[in-house]
């Protein structure tokens, strides 16, 4: 398990480095956590750019879930609520809910995931994005964890189990 986590995070790290992404921090839990994103305790990330927020699941989550074989996503035009499920991923023998860190209107859905669900594993912060949302509340974004806080959260969570 530890070897697989190391391999996964190293692969992701190399990929991010090659794409010249400067904002990278490594956590002692061996999952990649990106600076500049916000994080939920249920292991989703949010990237807020202008009027749109992009949402996906973290490297920590994809590593713990295993190979993703199916992704269930909502339709554009729908809405999401903070803390509520908007879709699911299937990995191993399990479906796992994906919860929205913020509330808002869904403006775009990553349709490529239907043909290539494994992008969630190989590129959780880039090609593996799941939905784009027009946020309805800026305070919800502010209440999410920073990269540093999320890194510590993951370490505590893994250490307690």
């Amino acid at each position: 398990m530890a070897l697989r986590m190391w391999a996964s995070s190293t692969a992701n790290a190399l990929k991010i480095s090659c794409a010249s992404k400067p904002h990278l921090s490594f956590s002692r839990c061996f999952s990649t956590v990106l600076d500049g994103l916000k994080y939920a305790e249920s292991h989703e990330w949010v990237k807020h750019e202008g009027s749109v927020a992009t949402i996906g699941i973290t490297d920590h989550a994809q590593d713990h879930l295993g190979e993703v074989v199916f992704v269930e996503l909502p339709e554009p035009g729908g809405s999401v609520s903070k803390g509520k499920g908007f879709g699911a991923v299937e990995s191993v023998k399990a479906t796992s809910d994906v919860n929205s860190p913020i509330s808002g209107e869904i403006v775009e859905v990553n349709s490529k995931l239907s043909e290539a669900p494994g992008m969630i594993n190989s590129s959780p912060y880039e090609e593996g994005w799941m939905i784009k949302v027009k946020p309805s509340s800026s305070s919800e974004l502010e209440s999410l964890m920073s990269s540093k806080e999320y890194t510590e959260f993951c370490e505590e969570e893994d250490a307690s189990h």
Partner: protein
Amino acid sequence: MLIPQTRNIGLPMMNLMRFKGLPILQQLHIEEQLLRTSSENWCIINDGTNDPTIVMGVSGKPAELLEIESVLHDQVPVIRRFTGGGTVIVDHETIFVTFICNKEAVPDLQPYPRPIMSWSNTLYSKVFQGIGDFHLRENDYVFGNHKFGGNAQSITKNKWIHHTSFLWDFDVRNMAYLKLPKRAPAYRSARGHLDFICRLKDYMPRSIFIDKTVEAAGTHFSLRSLESEAIETCSETEFRPLTRFLTNEELEAAAALAGQ
């Protein structure tokens, strides 16, 4: 009516519901509702279901998994369930065991597929101690390298479900409705159904298996048995399950699309 059963101070409470011959769709609807709406822990045991029924996982594609022409000709019901995993054909010879737990119910258990699967292995290792060569092989329960139990899970924000269909016995003719799946565990080594699976009845009497499973669950949880009128309570709320039968039209369309 609540009947107190095993009472172990300090263990989390778990409701135990036992059925015999409950239709599998009804069982799955109860499970899905409890997962989504109940804050309690549950163990459900269904000793066989009524009619032979095919049950696919949430992402199952009928054309890839089923011999649709035979299924339609013989009017075998097909269900798409809410959990992940593969396809099974179940009947009165199948024994179903389900655990629905809050995330805190099992100490130190991370609510992800592999830890939950591993925990289930510790429970069933107690059931099958000294019996056959039992172990968890990839995600299946096996004796040696022959599968007798298939697992599936669903994980929500605060709860998880792990349910298993045990092949007490099976009719070889029913296996003919199922294709060899594209996604198969490595240890299957491309074996056909009959070379891959085995019968639990060759290893343990039926009632002993169920009793031992309850006993093993009692080492993790404080069990209290609920009588069948609890089902009525489950169906009172307005919950819409995802689990459903596929229609003939859907199966025919799937076959047509795949050029069957």
